[in-house]
């Protein structure tokens, strides 16, 4: 008979805090001492890269920051990677946020990639940070219908005086919409993709990928899958960054959890097979 003190019981009922501690160590250690496992590049990342490569120089691209600060560790490395790509291809970038934290990251991306945001000589000409529009999907609909509905940019400048906004009348003028999101892309497909035919690229958290896939490749032309997608894109734009560094920590953490799942099942199965005897 299996008793309460039995080893199988112990295996099946490990204190969650032991798991928490080991998980923390498995993430923290490889960040200090990376072991450098190779990262392959997946097709959706390649198609994202190719689509942006194929845009004629000077095309208008909208980066929609529907991201909260909480998903920044996953999404911001993506933003940095593709903003670099947009800059290298000399495309015009309109940054707009549908989450209140978005404008800060939009600003940070400009500073990281261009070296400055609102004080950059090309601000208002090659890129702009329109700031946050409250109201979720309803706001997206309004913006898609008339991007000039926004009166002032994030820094309080009058938007109508800025060169980049002049040719805009509706979302039809956008050559690409990059959705940076940890919540959903369906709303962007509904308000930009379906009614205005704007191609969409998802710079999304790994969670969201299952929700993006039904739209790929018809409405969503490509997507980056969380931190891994960022690590892949960093390789494509030849700008290795924090995403690549994090991949070893990912490997260790995944391995740890799978080991715990196995251990738990060993305890469970042994107890179950013993019981009838």
């Amino acid at each position, binding site marked *: 008979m299996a008793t309460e003190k039995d080893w199988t019981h112990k295996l099946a009922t490990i204190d969650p805090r032991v798991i928490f501690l080991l998980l923390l160590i498995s993430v923290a250690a490889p960040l200090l001492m990376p072991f450098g496992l190779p990262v392959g590049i997946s097709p959706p990342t390649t198609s994202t890269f190719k689509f942006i490569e194929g845009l004629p120089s000077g095309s208008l691209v909208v980066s929609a920051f529907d991201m909260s600060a909480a998903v920044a*560790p996953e999404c911001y490395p993506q933003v940095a990677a593709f903003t670099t790509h947009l800059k290298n291809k000399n495309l015009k970038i309109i940054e707009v946020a549908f989450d209140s934290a978005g404008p800060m990251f939009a600003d940070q991306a400009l500073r990281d990639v261009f070296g400055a945001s609102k004080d950059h000589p090309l601000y208002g000409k090659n890129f702009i940070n329109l700031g946050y529009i409250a109201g979720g999907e*309803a706001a997206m609909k309004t913006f898609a219908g008339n991007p000039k509905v926004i009166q*002032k940019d994030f820094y309080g400048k009058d938007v109508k005086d800025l060169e980049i906004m002049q040719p805009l009348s509706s979302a039809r003028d956008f050559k690409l919409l990059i959705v940076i999101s940890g919540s959903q892309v369906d709303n962007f497909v509904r308000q930009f993709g379906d009614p205005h035919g704007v191609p969409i690229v998802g710079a999304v*958290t790994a969670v969201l990928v299952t929700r993006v896939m039904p739209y790929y490749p018809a409405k969503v032309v490509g997507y980056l899958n*969380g931190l891994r997608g960022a690590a892949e894109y960093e390789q494509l734009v030849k700008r290795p960054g924090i995403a690549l560094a994090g991949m070893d*920590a990912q490997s260790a953490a*995944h391995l740890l959890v799978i080991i715990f799942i196995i251990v738990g099942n060993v305890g469970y199965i042994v107890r179950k097979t013993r019981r009838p005897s």
Partner: protein
Amino acid sequence: MIGLDARLVGILLSGGLTLMAYSFLYRENRVSRIAEHIYLGAATGYGVVLSAKYVYDNAAVPLAKGNTFWAIPLLSSLLLYFYFSKKHFWLYRLPTAAIIGVGTGIVVAADFRTRLTEQIKATLLPLFVANDPYNTVNNLIIVFGVLGALIFFYFSKELKGPTRTLADFGKYILMVTFGASFGQTFMARISLIIGRVQSLYIWPASILLPLAAVLVGVAIAWDRRKQRTPRVSAGK
């Protein structure tokens, strides 16, 4: 402007708050409670400022410039505040009904298309692809998976016979979906932990790490002394 010192203080502050929040993983305690309440105050206050800015920029300014349309939402939303009145409580329902009407209307119209008819359209796959067993099998799994999972939710009666088999297949497909979604999310959440750990490795936040380790050690020793009986395992 913000100088170097402010930057260091910022790193220390955010590192400290991260560790305070993480102390919850050991157990709910005063330190984690303080972090929680700082967070509640800061985040809510920030939300208020952004909402106020939105109303000011997008309604108050246009109204002041003579666009009278904006008086409608501004005034009608004041009815929401009758919520605090005992007598005319119900007046809050008028603006709420408007928000719900518009909010639901937008989503129900678009969703019926995006989530139902577009999905049917995407699933109209041939059940047999000549000389391509791989795609034939995939199509069959998708089509019967969708049908099975749809039927699985059938509310009107318990299913029997072949429809039961189809619904069971649907149930298994749903389980695969849930498992896959869970597996995919895990990487995302680990990314968040990576982000936090990386921020703690930056000097001077790194000096907090040994401090935190000592405090947790003391807390564990304290708890052990207090109750010599074995602690609850696995939660419940």
